[in-house]
């Protein structure tokens, strides 16, 4: 377990060293070493932890110097935000930042000598041995934290490797953007360090510190190009995430005063225990939990806070990939999954589940009207996170099982899809889905990768669909019919936007435009590993469920739970075999068959190349086929405003009821 400080310090070191290297080639090598190091250290930690018997390890009870250092760090972060806000004349944001930092400083510095033991004494009277010394660990390594470490380190590390090749091509295409790649890589590594710290933290104050760092770094990454749009979007991301940070700070301040603990798992366990045994007293934990859930909702870009993630598209693709797949938004759902046992059956849980379910359907509808590849991916991220959030809000064993599985599959597939779209953009000069017509013939390798990613997002029997199946079942068992309806309609719209993208890719359309694949080898290495991981996750799905997800459920809920029966596993095996082997078999069967190839029917006379036809003037006309985008029906302009109003209304009303009910 001594590896943990090294694991966090290594990307930190990389973040400092990489921008100091001027030579591009040497810097690339440094990034490879940095990313490889993170992955190796994470796998090393996994090996040590496995060898130790997969235990729930609690670490660092006494850390006064570090605690002080973090408080200083928070003040410095606040200073940085204030400086940048003043420079860009965004004064209201200062209030949010100063407010929450002041609140946290006050809570930490004037913290009364009131611990969980004192709180317990209030309930049971002085019968309890008052000398019991509580252990207050600041870090915890359990199954869920370990899974997150692996996701962050491996997916994040691969994204850093991909970024080396990508940034070269990016600055080749965008000559107007000042080349600040050194800074960019530095931020990527800093992000990984903060994220690793966040998922390993058990103390809420530590978690808050890392939480704030990720908010600030995502702000810096989004503003990378320094265009007007980038600055605007980066400040939007900043204020929304700071709003969530305010919720976090309130939660810490309240929890330290009312129940005397700022340990995440103590808070959750206490809440569960009180609800079961002393319902009259349960109200004391409601406010901190609701505030933490609120912070989780902002970070995971749920409605009405989705706009920051959509705006984040202006940054270079690796940062989008990082924000969407391995880090940032996953921090939000990670916190919600941690909170899940305390959310089950409560008003806060219902609020989280509603917001999640509503976001799932609303974002998937708006995705239909997008023709920008990255926008579609952004909406799909928001929508999928909505499903995970809804599962966390219901908070029973089945839904958390589905949530964790969704998270694993989403991280890998989404990272791969972003990388593929980024590479296509560098080659084609556009990320418009319309310009990807017939991509299979033009950039076959990238198309295969994209195809695997898209299939992984929605087709049977890939993991996302299995999770959806389990989610549907558990929504019924939880008697939440609204979520069932959301899921039923949301799946249909999800299917629509992915299918039309996929069908665009597979059109066998020959064009005369020459396209050169400028994707570099390191980009392909990263993408191929992702593709292999997606396929393996799908093939080894029962093992993943047994070896990774079941222990997480056991540790979170204290009892083991069998979500998938043997019968379901057999059915899935049949599906898996058929999906992988039927097309292959058919390919082999039809390859030998003799076919006469004929030109397609085009209305006008086909010029012979299936690309031009004779129009009514007797001249050759280029065939142009477009997808449906249904902008009037599903466009952002039509749906975004009502969706934000509805979700914001529900959120405000329910938060008022929750907080009011607890007072």
């Amino acid at each position: 377990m001594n590896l943990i400080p090294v694991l966090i310090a290594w990307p930190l070191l990389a973040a400092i060293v990489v921008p100091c290297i001027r030579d591009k080639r040497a810097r690339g090598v440094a990034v490879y070493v940095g990313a490889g190091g993170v992955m190796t250290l994470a796998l090393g930690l996994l090996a040590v932890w496995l060898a130790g018997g997969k235990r729930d390890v609690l670490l660092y009870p006494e850390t006064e110097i570090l605690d002080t250092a973090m408080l200083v760090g928070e003040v410095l972060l606040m200073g940085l935000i204030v400086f940048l806000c003043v420079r860009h004349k965004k004064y209201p944001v200062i209030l949010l930042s100063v407010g929450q930092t002041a609140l946290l400083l006050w809570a930490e510095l004037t913290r009364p000598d009131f611990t969980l033991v004192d709180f317990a004494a209030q309930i049971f009277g002085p019968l309890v041995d008052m000398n019991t010394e509580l252990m207050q660990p600041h870090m915890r390594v359990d199954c869920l934290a370990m899974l997150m470490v692996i996701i962050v380190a491996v997916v994040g590390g691969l994204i850093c490797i991909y970024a080396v090749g990508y940034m070269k091509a990016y600055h080749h295409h965008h000559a107007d953007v000042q080349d600040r790649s050194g800074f960019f890589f530095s931020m990527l590594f800093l992000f990984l360090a903060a994220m690793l710290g966040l998922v390993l933290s058990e103390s809420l104050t530590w978690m808050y510190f890392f939480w704030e760092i990720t908010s600030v770094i995502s702000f810096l990454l989004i503003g990378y190009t320094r265009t007007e749009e980038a600055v605007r979007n980066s400040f939007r991301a900043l204020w929304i995430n700071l709003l969530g940070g305010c919720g976090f700070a309130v939660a810490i301040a309240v929890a330290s005063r009312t129940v005397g603990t700022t340990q995440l798992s103590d808070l959750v366990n206490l809440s569960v225990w009180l609800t079961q045994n002393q319902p009259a007293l349960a109200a004391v934990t409601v406010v901190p939990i609701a505030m933490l859930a609120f912070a989780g909702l902002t970070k995971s870009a749920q409605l009405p806070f989705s706009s920051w993630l959509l705006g984040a598209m202006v940054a270079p693709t690796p940062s989008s990939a990082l924000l969407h797949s391995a880090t940032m938004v996953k921090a939000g759902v990670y916190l919600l999954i941690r909170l899940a046992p305390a959310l089950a059956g409560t008003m806060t849980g219902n609020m989280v589940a509603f917001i999640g379910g509503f976001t799932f359907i609303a974002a998937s509808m708006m995705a239909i009207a997008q023709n920008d590849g990255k926008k579609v991916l952004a909406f799909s991220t928001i929508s999928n996170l909505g499903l995970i959030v809804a599962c966390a809000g219901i908070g029973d064993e089945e839904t958390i099982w589905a949530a964790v599985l969704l998270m694993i599959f989403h991280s890998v597939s989404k990272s791969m899809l972003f990388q593929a779209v980024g590479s296509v953009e560098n080659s084609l000069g556009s990320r418009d889905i319309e310009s990807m017509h017939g991509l299979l013939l033009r950039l076959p390798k990238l198309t295969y990768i994209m195809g695997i990613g898209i299939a992984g997002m929605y087709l049977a029997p890939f993991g996302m669909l299995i999770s959806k199946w389990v989610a549907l079942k558990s929504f019924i068992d939880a008697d939440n019919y609204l979520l069932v309806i959301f899921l039923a309609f949301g799946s249909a719209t999800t299917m629509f936007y992915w299918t039309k993208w996929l069908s665009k890719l597979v059109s066998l359309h020959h064009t005369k435009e020459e396209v050169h694949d400028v994707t570099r080898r390191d980009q392909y290495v990263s993408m191929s590993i992702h593709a292999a991981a997606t396929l393996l996750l799908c093939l080894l799905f029962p093992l993943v469920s047994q070896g990774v997800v079941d222990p997480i459920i056991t540790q979170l809920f204290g009892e083991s739970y069998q979500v998938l029966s043997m019968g379901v596993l057999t059915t899935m095996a049949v599906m898996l075999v058929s999906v992988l082997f039927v097309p292959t078999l058919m390919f082999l069967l039809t390859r030998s068959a003799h076919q006469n190839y004929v030109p397609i029917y085009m209305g006008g006379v086909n010029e012979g190349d299936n690309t031009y036809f004779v129009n009514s003037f007797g001249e050759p006309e280029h065939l142009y086929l477009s997808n449906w985008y249904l902008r009037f029906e599903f466009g952002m302009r039509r749906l975004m405003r009502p969706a934000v109003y509805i979700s914001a209304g529900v959120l405000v009303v329910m938060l008022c009821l929750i907080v009011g009910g607890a007072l």
Partner: protein
Amino acid sequence: MQAVSVILYLILAPFAGALLDGVSRIVSARMQGRKGPPLLQPFYDLLKLFQKQMIAVNSVQMLLNLSYLVFLAIAGSMLFAGADILMCLFILSTADMFLIMAASSDSSPFSSLGASREMMQIMAYEPLTLLLSVGFYLTTGSFHVGDIISRPVSAIVFMPGFLIGFFVITAIKLRKSPFDLSTSHHAHQELVKGLTTEMAGPTFGIMNVAEYYEMILMLGIVALFFLNENWWSWPLAIVMCLLVFFLEILWDNVSARVKWRTMLDSCWIVTLLSAGLNGLILMLIQ
């Protein structure tokens, strides 16, 4: 028992489907005041299609069409094996993906338009299929077809709304008016032959056989509403399937094709009103 019913489905479904197709052509013709083709005309058509020369516009169409056929057969087998109905419906939509890919791969204007409309049709009917399995789960406590049909009372008693909704979307799946947007059995067409424009000879034959499998699968789901542990529910289910099929033909002949917007709106509204309300009631009385 399961194996027998799966094998029977795999062997008999195309014949039963073609026979029903023949009946539907005759019934349609009578409704229009015509005599109609012989009962076995679909068989003659298929025979002819498979004897034709193999012509194609690209190399993958045949393989995607074959995959469509095999996946429909797997989906149907799952239903007839008494397996999980939700998984069966998931496979059904995966099968449809292959048909859409086959049509899109041609990059031809008419078949691409047909493929887009097919996606729209899936989006219109999919919520109901998911809710349908939810309905069966709420009624019988299981997603398993084997459990659903061995209850003392038929599911229809608890879920009449779902049957109404299912009747509407069956029109989409059987490519009947008013929802035959992507391709149609009727001669009047605005999209030439839509989805199937570029399919010829054996490729088109395979597509037809696949549709027969799908037809029997849909009627099998209708039967699920009526089957229970008593023997007399089986003839009742068959009669009800035939009745539903007849009503589909009737609806096909009395209505004109609608625009996609009308189809989407009406299907979603019907889904919400019939299946949505029925499911809500089921959940409340539980």
